[in-house]
């Protein structure tokens, strides 16, 4: 592999010496060894199909972006330490010990060139969960102190302060300003509530109307819900950076706040990885089942729709494309809710060639949005997606994930793209039957 142009960054905290880094990665990998991981690694037949599912490979045709290759260090370590013939691999050094250079080299592959979108897991003839392996790989990288600095720093900051970056004013204040600006009442810090809600940081800063829309819908539905000023941010940078501890700390903030108000349901806003983190990972990280249901906002609204509580007006017949956020739809299992909502509004939906469970990622997921150096690669992958959206002939472009919107927004500016990514929930909010 050519490493000439490859760059990597080191975290400020965590292990610093080469030996400590390797040890950290090994320790982290070892935590994930198990039967399922074993089967996934042992069954690979090197058929290369996963590359054909990966937008980074399709966009670049560069073999190094083959998904299964991105987890090579972990495969190697598994074979050497935990596989059926590990003692022989070790004895004869058939799989050499991982080096810090390899880990550094792989940083780009595991972080810049993977959105953890999980599309490759659907094509693999052996049924290998490539995306899960990459998640394990990222965790090892964090514990080696080799997660990209941007992600690691934000994860640590968020774990400590509740939000990933310094802010001019507390989010609670920002939230009430949004409520005032959009003339929506946003309940904050209620003592008791049935439903606990949080909001995407990115929407609060750059797309506040989406946050207001969510509150508006919930108000209309007369849901007894609340935000908590110490747990407003939905994002989980711990998940992006690959840190179990930080991810857990960040998740616990929401979990504890929801427990405190006695919530039966936590509604995750339009934010993909937040949904995966809370819906499918938090219970395992915390070590116990969560005492409430976790629902994505579209899922929650679709339930209300099915119950007849939510009634919607018909929208215009503008041709509309919908981008399925990987972590909510393909990986999260919220397969039908967005389409049920759109159907109820009579949206003239023009499906992309790859949609629903098989849609291409926006290119920005998995923390890639935050990596400055990943931009050139990301744009290449996004070009693919933009062409696919254009091919539908749609004028309106909806999605249900704020991170996806950030990615599309960025691409829009870069490519002078003619579409503006809009929030599905906002469309719902605007079309509630009075």
């Amino acid at each position, binding site marked *: 592999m050519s490493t000439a142009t490859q760059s990597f960054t080191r975290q400020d905290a965590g292990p610093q010496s080469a030996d400590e880094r390797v040890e950290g990665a090994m*320790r982290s990998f070892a935590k994930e060894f198990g039967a399922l991981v074993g089967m996934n690694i042992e069954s690979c037949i090197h058929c290369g199909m996963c590359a054909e599912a990966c937008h980074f490979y399709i966009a670049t045709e560069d073999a190094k972006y083959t998904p299964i290759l991105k987890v090579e260090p972990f495969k190697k370590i598994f074979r050497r330490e935990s596989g059926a013939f590990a*003692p022989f691999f070790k004895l004869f050094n058939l799989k050499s010990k991982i080096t810090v250079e390899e880990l550094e080299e792989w940083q780009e592959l595991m972080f810049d060139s993977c959105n953890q979108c999980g599309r490759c897991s659907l094509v693999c003839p052996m049924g290998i969960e490539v995306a899960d392996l990459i998640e394990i790989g990222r965790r090892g990288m964090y514990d080696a102190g080799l997660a990209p600095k941007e992600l690691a720093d934000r994860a640590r900051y968020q774990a400590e302060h509740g939000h990933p970056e310094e802010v001019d004013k507390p989010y609670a204040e920002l939230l009430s300003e949004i409520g005032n600006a959009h003339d929506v009442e946003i309940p904050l810090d209620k003592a008791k509530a049935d439903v606990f809600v949080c909001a995407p940081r990115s929407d609060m800063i750059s797309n506040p109307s989406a946050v207001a829309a969510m509150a508006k819908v919930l108000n209309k539905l007369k849901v007894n819900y609340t935000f908590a000023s110490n747990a407003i941010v939905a994002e989980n940078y711990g998940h992006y950076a690959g840190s179990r501890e930080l991810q857990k700390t960040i998740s616990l903030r929401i979990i504890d706040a929801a427990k405190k108000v006695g919530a039966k349901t936590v509604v995750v806003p339009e934010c993909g990885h937040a949904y995966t983190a809370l819906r499918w990972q938090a219970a395992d990280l915390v070590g116990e089942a969560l005492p409430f249901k976790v629902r994505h906002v579209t899922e929650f609204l679709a339930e209300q729709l099915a119950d007849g509580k939510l009634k919607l007006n018909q929208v215009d017949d503008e041709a509309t494309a919908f981008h399925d956020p990987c972590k909510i739809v393909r990986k999260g299992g919220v397969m039908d809710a967005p389409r049920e909502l759109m159907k109820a509004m009579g949206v003239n939906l023009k499906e992309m060639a790859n949609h629903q469970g098989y849609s291409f990622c926006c290119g920005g997921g998995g923390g890639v949005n935050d990596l400055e150096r990943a931009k050139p690669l990301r744009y290449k992958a996004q070009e693919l997606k933009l062409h696919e959206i254009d091919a539908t002939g749609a004028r309106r472009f909806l999605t249900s994930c704020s991170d996806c919107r950030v990615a599309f927004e960025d691409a829009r500016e870069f490519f002078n793209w003619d579409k503006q990514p809009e929030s599905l929930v906002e469309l719902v909010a605007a079309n509630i039957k009075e």
Partner: protein
Amino acid sequence: MSNKNPRNQQPTIGEVMDQAGVGRRQFMKYCAGITAMMAMPPLSTAAFARDLRAARRPSVIYMPFQECTGCLESLTRSFAPALENLMFNTISLDYNHTLQAAAGEAAEAARHAAMEENFGEYVLICDGSIPTKINGAYGTSDGHTFIQQLEEAAEGAAAIVAVGACAAFGGVAAAHPNPTGAVGVADLIKDRPIINVPGCPPMPEVMTGVLVSFLASGVPALDKHLRPKAFFGDTIHDRCYRRRFYDRGLFAKSFDDEGARNGWCLYELGCRGPTTYNACATIKWNGGASWPVEAGHGCIGCSEPNFWDQGGFYEPLSAKLFEERGQAAVAAAAGVAVGAAAAYGARRRQKKLAGDAE
């Protein structure tokens, strides 16, 4: 056998023929039969006849060892160079237990006399295997072990023809577990030309054909099992009239099914044709009347070394050749045990590596 010639001068076969009143036409026909059988070019018949006429009529010592007399039975049913011709015209059969009138010491004396008179020139035919365990005590004759008798008889032989699977390769006596330590002639005698004519029994025409061709032109071209290539150059399968069914994938599945009645290939019923080198398919038996495969039974491969130990005669050629006495089950149990140990080791290593943090 008393018609002794002066020890230094046997008559030529031509002279013997002339005396017996065998005409030229008859002799040429005889030679043509043999050359045709050996697949020699037709033009070579004249030269073959010339060489055979010029050859000295040899003394033949026929030594039986651990045998069943089946080979001799087969030999006496030879049709091509008929036996009476062979015995009285072509060769001088000076010793054969079964055929000669003399017995006991008289017979042995005749053998010793013939060996002495024709030292270095007689042809030794052996049938039966030679038991070697307990110093050869499993097989004795006239107070000597077969080993001793063979070594003694081999010393003055111009060539040895080992007829039958036993003399050639040890045969049935050498089949597992070979209690007598039976071996073939070539396993014991290393310093004499040996021609193996294996089969159980060998084809009579092949036996006589080998003898006559030896007289005419010496030791023929042999394969690695010392068999004359003229008779053992092709497999039964190559020459089998059922081959076309094999090529079309038509196999009899049992001995009385439609396929068997239609004469389809017997491969699946255990036919050894593909790995057996012999002339049965071309010369056939009983004067060309039929042969085993034509009679509906697969070849059992009797002209091949150790043919008794190649699995059941009714099992196909690809069948396993080992007795599974639970070794695979032990291997399976061991695999599970080692796998479990490996997993245990891996989990301990995992705990150690992970620092037991969780």
